[in-house]
């Protein structure tokens, strides 16, 4: 275990910016490099695990004007992103509200806690027929599946965040005459933010998984899940991995980019989370 005992005051490292790039490039480069070599030398089946360069080449073609349909992959990405962001956005709002209700109110706890914990173990597969019944064939079905998947992580983390806050922090706001909304805005939301961000990271991750499953199961054409599903019908491993790689990279970009930026601007600046 690495642990600095005497924490020297943190100074800006002269190489901070390059290192931030070097690390992911090295660690990911190592991963993909090994894969490339293993596939090229035949250590692993290059049909089941096409080398990354071949995957990228196939992706390049299918995302370009010569794809089938032209620019098809781009369309898939756009549609998937739309569904994902809509679902996650919904989960962020509704999930936080439900989490707040559970954490802050007796009735919320009594009503939502059992229902949420009963719904959580239900797999995506089981939702689609019900959603089909409710929404029909529509983007709404997919978006709802994504919403459901992302909600649980957010709800549970919001509840933990609230439970970890000291009650006196609400008291301060209350003694200043803060309304419920003000207490929420000035105290609770910033207070639970570290947990909310963890929930959001996980939520986005599971939202991707659910989205892929939903695009494979429910009525949809286009979208990365559909692309993977379609490729499976032809055992087109390059396209399957192309889709998966795209998901991975988009997931990474959202987690690092959007959520990471939020993290930097808030909890890291506040010094709430200890950097060791």
């Amino acid at each position, binding site marked *: 275990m690495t642990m600095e005992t005497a924490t020297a005051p943190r100074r800006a490292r002269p190489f901070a910016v390059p290192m931030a790039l070097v690390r992911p490039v090295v660690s990911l480069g190592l991963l993909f490099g090994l894969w490339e070599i293993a596939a090229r030398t035949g250590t692993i089946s290059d049909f089941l695990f096409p080398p990354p360069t071949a995957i990228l080449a196939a992706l390049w073609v299918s995302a370009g004007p010569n794809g089938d349909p032209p620019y098809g992959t781009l369309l898939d990405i756009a549609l998937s992103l739309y569904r994902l962001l809509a679902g996650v956005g919904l989960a962020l709002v509704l999930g936080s509200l439900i989490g707040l209700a559970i954490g802050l109110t007796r009735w919320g706890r009594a009503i939502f806690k059992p229902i949420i914990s009963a719904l959580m173990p239900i797999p995506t597969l089981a939702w689609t027929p019900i959603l089909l019944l409710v929404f029909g064939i529509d983007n709404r079905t997919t978006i709802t599946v994504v919403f459901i998947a992302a909600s649980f992580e957010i709800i549970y983390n919001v509840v933990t965040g609230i439970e970890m806050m000291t009650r006196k922090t609400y008291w301060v706001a209350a003694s200043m005459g803060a309304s419920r909304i003000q207490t929420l805005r000035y105290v609770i939301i910033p207070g639970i933010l570290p947990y909310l961000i963890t929930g959001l990271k996980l939520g986005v991750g599971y939202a991707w998984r659910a989205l892929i499953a939903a695009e494979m199961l429910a*009525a949809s054409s286009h979208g990365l899940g559909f692309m993977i599903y379609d490729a499976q019908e032809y055992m087109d491993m390059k396209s399957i991995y192309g889709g998966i790689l795209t998901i991975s990279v988009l997931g990474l970009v959202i987690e690092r980019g959007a959520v990471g930026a939020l993290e930097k601007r808030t909890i890291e600046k506040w010094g709430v989370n200890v950097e060791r």
Partner: protein
Amino acid sequence: AAETLAVGVQQVPPDEVYIARDWGEPYGLEIEATQFSSGGDMLKAFLAGRVMVANGGSGRLVTLAAQQPETFYIIGTQQSGGDRYSLVVRKDSEAGGIEDLKGRKLGVVTGTGTYGTFLVYLQEQGLSEGDFQIVNMKIDDLRAAVEQQLVDAAVMWEPFVAIAEEMGNVKRLVSMKGVNESPNFLLANRTFTDENPETIVKFLASSIDAASFMEADPAEAGQLAADQIARGGVSVPASALETAFTRISVKREVTDAMVAELVPVAEAMKAAGKIAEVPDFGSFVRRDLYEQALELTRSTTN
């Protein structure tokens, strides 16, 4: 000592019948069947050498033949026949034929052999995809979609058609009978087959026995399959499976017409840039093994 063979099967009625009884016993062959829920996973396990026998439809087979020609032989068919594909509508639908559905919503599962056959059928009728609003769905949801009038009709395969009919809310409007054969081929691991041809022959023989049984007595086959499925706790009407068996062709023999059907699929994939060349499918077919197996069944049952 009995030989053993790892076989991949799917959750389809012919395979249920195959695993319901020990068909390998007369040949001293022990079958280790693993049931997969998707053909894709079965083929991955097949390529990984985890199962020696698997089956695959046209799309996957073309890719395999083009990119992994050294890995397999075609030793027979698992199921075939256009009659197992139907266009279904709600029971109260007034549509009398495919023309009445022009411009309406059709639920299909794109990419499947079923859809390919349907496209050929449309062509024969002088129609095309563009005449309908095509909605891609998962097979399990199609029935519900038709019932809920989310779509006006759906293209489904057996046993879904028969079960849905049995459930009472949908009816069969058109059968794709005679449009083509759209076979699912039985594939065997090439290295294994080269080293153990007799084992594969024995397997094929057991498979032929099972097929004969299904053809001779669809009612009993339906019952057997239903019982097999019920072991997992799932209940399905035997009568529906019986109907399915009358529509599915389980003949094991690979005909030239079947092999020829792969060519247009391959040409389309070549045009889409998915494969480089149209493979010579004939070179994969091991009719000799089938002949030997047929011989073996005759000598054993007699």
